[in-house]
């Protein structure tokens, strides 16, 4: 089988898994997870085969694996869709397939496969534990998720969406994959639909990303009308790009810039950049594998991937580039400021995701194509690691909650944790690796290499504002990451529940280890050539490989010591400060950074609620529903009833009764009666009168005949 056929087949196993589970195996948990994990494994296998073959191709950028078919007839031509694996696609395929596979495997343990069904568990609510009797001792143990199979089905659909997006060779099918993931994020964030907060979060996520999607669709339509094609390789030809950049559009942008801007707005929604960032923290309502999937491996990465794909178009208009850079840098700093004041372990990671995506977007805004792609991949690894790790921590805490029976303790609140390093060692070490990668700990973590490259590119191209903003954001990233690690794992357990925490099963810890491996080693494929000491030992494979995607190979910057020192300083300094400040903090009261405006996310949710949600609700409930629908339309209809009734009664009382009944009906009878009565008088019984009438009639008839000349 050729590579192209294999590429077509890669998205297939997860969607098959979705249909099989939904239609057939919903009742069997074991069968469903086998199908799900098996499908993820098959797709991973296929992706690896393609990746390895892609590595072997010279100049993959000029000769990518591609295959397309005629799909929509458009007049005399056909709209073609197909698959494309160029270097960027191959690299993305690598990390997407492994992370998806790890998450599938993790979900088996996360949803407590093999545990008994809960005492009070209902479908739609998180499981609460079961009581088992053991030597006349009652133990509370974690219970299995009631909707276990459904989870794997949705996860499969999600994986399908991501694979479709990655292997697409045109914007349309990419958008299809984009939207499938939008749907699945709604389904999965609202997985525990019995909780109102989950339902609201799902709607919020869908609505917010939808706003971005509308603009993206506008961009796609604009592009299609301007160039007549949506195929990446056809758009990024010299003539088309030249045509687009010279055609003017609104607000002083060129057509290229406007299209890129519209597509970028889609990314703002999908990758939770300012101002459409509000959905991502709330999306933590979903189960942790979902958070890992959506917010690390796939969905948010899809947004950045889309921008990276459209980079040739984006880079043509400096105005659009500045907007992109600004939003990216601003979001990076903005989200970091909120993250330092969060107490929920998953919320911190959510805001850190927003912040890191801002890094990537800012990188693209300053033209650092390879750096952005690099950071995308390394971030996927360590963020997925961190999320899955946090899920493991929460599971351990829940074990403690079941042990003590105190269900009022929030297992996700970091101030209830502490000292978990000894209780959950594997989780601790992998989480530490992930956290260090996120902070950019030098040399041994992948995050360092990718983040350093972004800072170097920003500095090297002279974008000082972006550089400084990102540096500050990186410092804060390290700071809050260490705060998180300190509060969660170091020190002494602060609650009984933390004391009784336990390590999680192998299905959860094995993926952590695998991801940790990549979080350490992946950075070494992108060591810049001019790096002191280490540069040049290993070729900068990543830059060569992924850089080949573009028509012109991106330049390799001259090495500058300042960005390197800056990133060393911010990473190590932030980590130290985080440990230093928080090693003795045991409650929120002692935490000086619990500033209300930060804790409340700069009141953006409240602002959006006031500006958009309340007016929209007002329009829907009051204006449309109450006034127009019930008032006007129903009012008109309600007029018909009484009006018809009134008309009927008028007709009845004023026409039917008096005229037709009385006047015509009774009237004719009365007239006949009266007439008869009067005529009766003629029949007097008197012979003489009869004779007189006869004679009169005779005379009259005779006269009439005479005068009409009938009688002479």
């Amino acid at each position, binding site marked *: 089988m050729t590579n192209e056929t294999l590429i077509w087949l890669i998205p297939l196993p997860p969607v098959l898994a979705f249909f099989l589970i939904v239609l057939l195996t919903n009742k069997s948990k074991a069968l469903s997870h086998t199908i799900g994990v098996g499908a993820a494994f098959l797709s991973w296998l296929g992706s690896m085969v393609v990746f390895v073959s892609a590595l072997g191709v010279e100049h993959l950028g000029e000769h990518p694996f591609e295959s397309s078919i005629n799909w929509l007839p458009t007049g005399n031509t056909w709209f073609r869709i197909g698959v494309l694996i160029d270097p960027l696609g191959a690299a993305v395929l690598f990390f997407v397939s492994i992370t998806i596979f790890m998450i599938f495997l993790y979900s088996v343990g996360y949803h407590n496969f093999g545990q008994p069904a809960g005492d009070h568990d209902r479908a739609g609510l998180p499981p609460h534990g079961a009581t088992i009797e053991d030597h006349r001792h009652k133990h509370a143990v974690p219970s299995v998720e009631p909707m276990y199979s459904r989870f794997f089905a949705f996860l499969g659909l999600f994986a399908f969406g991501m694979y479709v997006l990655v292997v697409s060779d045109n914007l349309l099918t990419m958008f299809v994959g984009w939207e499938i993931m939008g749907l699945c994020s709604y389904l999965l964030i609202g997985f525990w639909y019995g909780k109102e907060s989950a339902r609201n979060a799902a709607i919020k996520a869908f609505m917010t990303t939808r706003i971005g999607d509308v603009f993206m669709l506008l961009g796609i339509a604009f592009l299609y009308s301007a160039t007549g094609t949506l195929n990446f390789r056809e758009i990024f030809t010299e003539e088309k790009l030249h045509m687009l950049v010279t055609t003017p559009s609104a607000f002083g942008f060129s057509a290229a810039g406007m299209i890129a801007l519209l597509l970028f707005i889609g990314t703002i929604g999908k990758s939770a950049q300012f101002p459409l960032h509000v959905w991502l923290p709330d999306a933590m309502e979903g189960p942790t594998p979902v958070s890992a999937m959506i917010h690390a491996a796939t969905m948010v990465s899809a947004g950045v991937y889309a921008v990276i794909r459209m980079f040739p178009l984006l880079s043509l208009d400096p105005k659009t580039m500045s907007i992109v850079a600004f939003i990216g840098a601003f979001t990076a700093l903005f989200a970091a400021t909120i993250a330092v004041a969060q107490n929920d372990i998953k919320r911190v990671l959510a805001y850190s995701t927003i912040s890191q995506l801002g890094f990537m977007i800012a990188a693209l805004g300053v033209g650092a194509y390879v750096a952005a792609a690099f950071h995308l991949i390394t971030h996927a690894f360590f963020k997925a690691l961190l999320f899955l790790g946090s899920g493991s921590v929460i599971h351990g805490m829940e074990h403690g909650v079941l042990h003590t029976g105190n269900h009022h303790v929030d297992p996700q609140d970091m101030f209830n944790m502490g000292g978990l390093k000894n209780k959950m060692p594997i989780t601790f070490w992998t989480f530490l690796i992930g956290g260090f990668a996120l902070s950019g700990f030098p040399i041994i973590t992948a995050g360092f290499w990718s983040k350093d490259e972004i800072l170097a590119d920003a500095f090297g191209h002279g974008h000082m504002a972006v550089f400084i903003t990102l540096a500050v954001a990186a410092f804060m990233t390290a700071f809050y990451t260490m705060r998180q690690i300190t509060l969660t794992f170091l020190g002494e357990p602060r609650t009984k529940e933390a004391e009784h925490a336990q390590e999680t099963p192998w299905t959860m810890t094995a993926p952590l280890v695998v991801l940790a491996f990549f979080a350490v080693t992946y950075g070494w494929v992108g060591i810049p050539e001019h790096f002191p000491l280490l540069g040049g030992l290993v070729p900068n494979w990543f830059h060569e490989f992924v850089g080949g995607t573009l028509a012109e190979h991106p330049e390799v910057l001259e090495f500058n010591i300042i960005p390197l020192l800056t990133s060393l300083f911010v990473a190590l300094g932030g980590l130290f400060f985080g440990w230093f400040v928080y090693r003795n903090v045991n409650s929120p009261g002692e935490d000086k950074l619990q500033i209300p405006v930060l804790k409340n996310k700069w009141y953006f949710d409240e602002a959006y609620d006031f500006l958009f949600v309340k007016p929209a609700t007002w329009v829907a409930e009051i204006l449309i529903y109450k006034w127009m629908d019930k008032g006007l339309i129903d009012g008109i209809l309600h007029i018909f009833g009484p009006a018809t009734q009134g008309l009927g009664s008028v007709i009845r009382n004023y026409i039917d009764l008096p005229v037709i009944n009385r006047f015509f009906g009774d009237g004719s009878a009365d007239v006949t009666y009266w007439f008869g009565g009067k005529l*009766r008088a003629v*029949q*007097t*019984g*008197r*012979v*003489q009168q009869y*004779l*007189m009438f006869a*004679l009169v009639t005779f005379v009259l008839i005779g006269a009439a005949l005479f005068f009409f000349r009938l009688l002479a």
Partner: protein
Amino acid sequence: MVPLSWYLIFAAALFSIGLFGVLSRRNAVAILLGIELMLNSVNINLVAFWRYGNTANMMGQVFAIIVFAVAAAEVAVGLALVISVYRRRNTVVADEIDMMKW
């Protein structure tokens, strides 16, 4: 030299007088008197036409004879009826004999 018209007018006048009597008299017998006058005027007409037409054709006189017979019969029966009614109702006023009505 009496023109025919004089006889005819004479008969018409007698007929009208008889008609007046029939229409206006209260007594039932008086009504029959009027009828007699009318029949006589008819007879005058018939005989006048016989005389002023073809006297060989006796139809005029024969008709008049038949009219005599009819008049006689009618008077007989009519007066018998009047008498019978008088016996029942004790009245001969025509207006009071009015049961042939609704």
